[in-house]
């Protein structure tokens, strides 16, 4: 049911963990539904210099968050916000229909982390 890419990102996840002194943290999902995704970013010159994820969820949720961290690393914040769940799905080679929401969670996680960073900046300003 899963593509080789999904299996690979699930069994060998990239960018696992949390960043010390993260500049922005996005936590999305709901433990009741079985998926919680937490994405931490480090921002330098308006670019995502580093990113980590922690996910409670199924293989699709873990693979989606892992590949999403790779997709946004090095991008400007505006570029990162343009990454959609479709991009995540394409990068994974697709997900079963009932798992599409996992890719959406990755998109929401990125957005929440960037928004968290921007609101922290706004508070400081």
């Amino acid at each position, binding site marked *: 049911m899963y593509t080789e890419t999904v299996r690979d990102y699930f069994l060998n996840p990239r960018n696992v963990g949390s960043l010390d002194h993260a500049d922005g943290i996005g936590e999305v999902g709901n*433990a009741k*539904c*079985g998926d*919680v995704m937490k994405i931490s970013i480090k921002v330098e010159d308006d670019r995502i210099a580093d990113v980590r994820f922690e*996910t409670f969820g199924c293989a699709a949720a873990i693979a989606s968050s892992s590949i999403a961290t790779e997709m946004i690393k090095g991008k400007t914040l505006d570029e990162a916000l343009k990454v959609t769940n479709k991009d995540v799905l394409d990068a994974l080679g697709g997900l079963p229909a009932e798992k599409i929401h996992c890719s959406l969670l990755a998109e929401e996680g990125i957005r929440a982390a960037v928004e968290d960073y921007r609101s922290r900046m706004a508070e400081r300003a």
Partner: protein
Amino acid sequence: MEQRRVYLDHSATTPVDDRVLEAMMPFFKVDFGNPNSIHAWGRRVREHVNGARERVASLLGAEPREIIFTGGGSEADNLAIKGAAFALKARGKHVITSAIEHHAVLDTVKWLGENGFDVTILPVDAQGMVSPETFRNSLREDTIFATVMYANNEVGTVQPIAELGAICRERGILFHTDAVQAAGHVPIDVRTLPVDMLTLSAHKMYGPKGVGALYVRRGVRIPPLVHGGGQEFGLRSGTENTAGIVGFGEAALLALDRFENGDDEKERFLRDKLIDGIQARIDAVLLTGHRTKRLPFHASVCIEHIEGEAMLLRLDAVGIGASSGSACTSGSLDPSHVLLAMGLSHVTAHGSLRLSLGKDTTEADIDYVLDALPPVVETLRAMSPFGRK
């Protein structure tokens, strides 16, 4: 070196025993006759179908005439439940079941509820047990039928069927039990067990898929689900699945042998070693189901902070086949109705793991799982925002 492979999903299905397969083989090409035909080809096959009926009956202490072969356990459940409802609808419209039934029972009873019957779905306690007192209190003047499973497929809890059946008998209520998980694994004797109908399935006891049976106590009258040529005493029309039925008969015979050899005791020992080992090696683990009143081959737990499907795939990657009541294995957002009915939180229920042993499971297999599971849990917990750091 080739990776070790350990199959611990016998509650889902069992491999066909070699002797069962051997018994089945002639019925595809050599003894291919239709058992309903009058000629020699047919008569010969009829004898074997009758022999299989005797064997399945002997597993339960039943009479051969009381065994109706069906296309599987789900069909047998449907025949019993819809049959009882139709047969008794003039007497009343109240039907009782439990919250942790297999969907073949639960959905069928709910369907009755949408079609003019009143349905009571009984709660269970934290161990997944139906209380006889609650059961008794749920009975009404117009209760016609109750169905409670013998043993649960997800958590392994064995219900007090003798007590529930006795309550029904006192009140003249028809009682069915879905014994798909239990039959062939724990001794069942309908000469003393007060049940009117009982479901069993061949592929859960080393027989083939696609064949089940309903025990219908002599004197109980229900209408058929499948009308047609009148096979199976008019209760299940259609040319008999002769190879499957013969295989089922052989599987029943082998199950009786296993009881005599005390093989269930060996399974019980390995099951306890597995449960104790998991609890000793991994923290924040909850045993699901009753500690002792459980199927001899059944270990089920919830492992906190991680999700079941992810656990299954990582176990699969190291050669271990298991299952889970996690939502993500079902495509719904809610985890198993059984775990929720037992009062577990959604978050805990998402981490469910079911390991069901088989007759060929060895102690080395259990040791392998006990070594392989902790690093899988550790890896997933390290990835989880709820994991212990």
